[in-house]
């Protein structure tokens, strides 16, 4: 369609930073009974490998839709989306990403260990090996010793940690999270944010994170994508000046508050349009 932006983007990006996700001119239109609804309009976004990118915006801005498009849970009406250089469909079949939903969605008939083993089992790997891998991942999210428990025996925060371990079970290059801590209380949420940040620091996996909390987005991200509704679009992309290594105390510093302020301004701008 429009061949110009592609070489420009390719030329301007340093060779070291490879794109994990590339979205070009992407639109999503829902056909409804009266008028078509434009859920996403002309989205352009590049996420490099190893980045922690947050999509933030008010309800209806299309942040979840954008994540779902990248995850091949929804289809674009026009434009291009590439995940690891291939279409979202092929990337999904190649198990390029792990997806964490708003709810833990653990199977109640499986133990914690059984739930983490599920994606490995689907991949058709050896059972004994699955077990070892799943145990290791549970350890990484701090749930060692809970392998034999059933989901209902765990708190909401622990359940969501199990679902993160499950998403990471087959070591996907990209981790996608759709408001994973939205249903949790603030204290639990803070702790999980800190753990997720540490996890990212250790493994430097690409993370695409949807949230409606400014503090969460600023604390976690290296890049914040501010979105706005009607039609769903990107109003600003903020590269975070904060250091990669972070602690909860960072949130009381001036630098943190400056970024938070910038996000808030961008959100307000999007609303005035």
């Amino acid at each position: 369609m429009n061949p110009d932006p592609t070489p420009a983007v390719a030329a301007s990006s340093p060779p070291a930073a490879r794109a994990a996700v590339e979205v070009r001119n992407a639109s999503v239109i829902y056909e409804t009974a009266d008028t078509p609804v434009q859920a996403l309009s002309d989205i352009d976004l590049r996420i490099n490998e190893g980045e922690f990118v947050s999509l933030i915006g008010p309800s209806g801005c299309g942040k979840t839709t954008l994540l779902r498009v990248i995850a091949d849970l929804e289809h674009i009406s026009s434009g291009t989306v590439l995940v690891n250089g291939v279409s979202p469909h092929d990337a999904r079949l190649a198990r390029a990403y792990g997806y964490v939903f708003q709810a833990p969605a653990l199977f109640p008939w499986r133990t914690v260990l059984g739930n983490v083993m599920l994606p490995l089992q689907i991949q058709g790997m050896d059972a004994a090996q699955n077990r070892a891998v799943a145990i290791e991942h549970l350890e990484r999210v701090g749930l060692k010793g809970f392998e034999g428990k059933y989901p209902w025996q765990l708190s909401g925060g622990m359940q969501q940690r199990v679902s993160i371990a499950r998403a990471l079970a087959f070591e996907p290059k990209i981790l996608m999270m759709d408001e994973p801590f939205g249903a949790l209380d603030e204290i639990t949420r803070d702790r999980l944010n800190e753990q997720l940040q540490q996890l990212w620091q250790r493994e430097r996996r690409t993370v695409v994170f949807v949230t409606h909390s400014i503090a969460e987005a600023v604390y976690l991200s290296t890049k914040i994508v501010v979105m706005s509704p009607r039609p769903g679009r990107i109003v600003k992309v903020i590269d975070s000046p904060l250091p990669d290594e972070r602690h909860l105390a960072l949130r009381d510093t001036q630098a943190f508050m400056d970024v938070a302020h910038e996000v808030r301004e961008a959100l307000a701008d999007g609303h005035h349009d």
Partner: protein
Amino acid sequence: MATTTKRIERSWLGQVWHNGLPVAVVVLALLVVWYAAACAMNASAVIERVLTPSGNPWTWQDLAAATWSMERPVLPAPHQIALDFWSSLVDWPLDSPRNLLFHVAVTGETTLVGFVLGTLLGLLLAIAIVHSRTLDRALLPWIVASQTVPVLAIAPIVLVILGSLGMEGLAPKAVIAMYLSFFPVTVAMVQGLRSPQVIETEMMHTYAATAWQSLWLLRLPAALPFLFPALRVGIAASLVGAMVAELPTGAAAGLGARLLTGSYYGNTLAIWSALVMSSLLGLLLTAVVGLTERLALRHRHT
């Protein structure tokens, strides 16, 4: 230590007293009504055939005693049924048609074979319906319609047709039992296989799971809580089907056949004993399914 044990013991006894008392009262009331009814319903026959021909004056006690000990009463008294039931179990060898356990074995076999076939058919139909919109529209109306045809009308036809194909004995009866038991399983499993939430289906989608993997790892386990109540209904229906299937052929064996011969010869005691036995068989079968359910779902927490 000793006091704790004692308290537990007392509370256990209390439990029995607490739960058993209402049941006992109802049973007692039923027995009283039953004996009174037996007396009233058998009275005219007893007066006509026993008390009046004897020529002696008779009292109410004579009437009661006579109505509760007839050989072929309109309504037998409970102790008569109990005695007949017991004597059929202990006075005859297991392979004798006079022994009720002989008939239990015949009917039980048909019931179980029909139940297993019906459950398999129900599962297959449900899986087909859930995976294909065309089959959903094509099959479901017929499945529902099949249950509006009375089994008593279907049974002779099935027996004649299968008989002409050379199927005799167990097979045609099991088919009729299956005809009754597949339906609850189909309906419940269609609902159960569709019970996973969108988020769970999408999760399987992100794992690039195949349709079979989704069925085996998500849909079937999610449907289990729907399956077991249907199995309880299904096995009871299968028992009804097995007994009904024994009627049109005038089958020589089985609880249904026993009911039929009992009514041919006006042997009411035999009818009642067979009735008691078939309800015991039904209770046993549903209890086995219930136990399996508790075992299979012991880790589920709702």
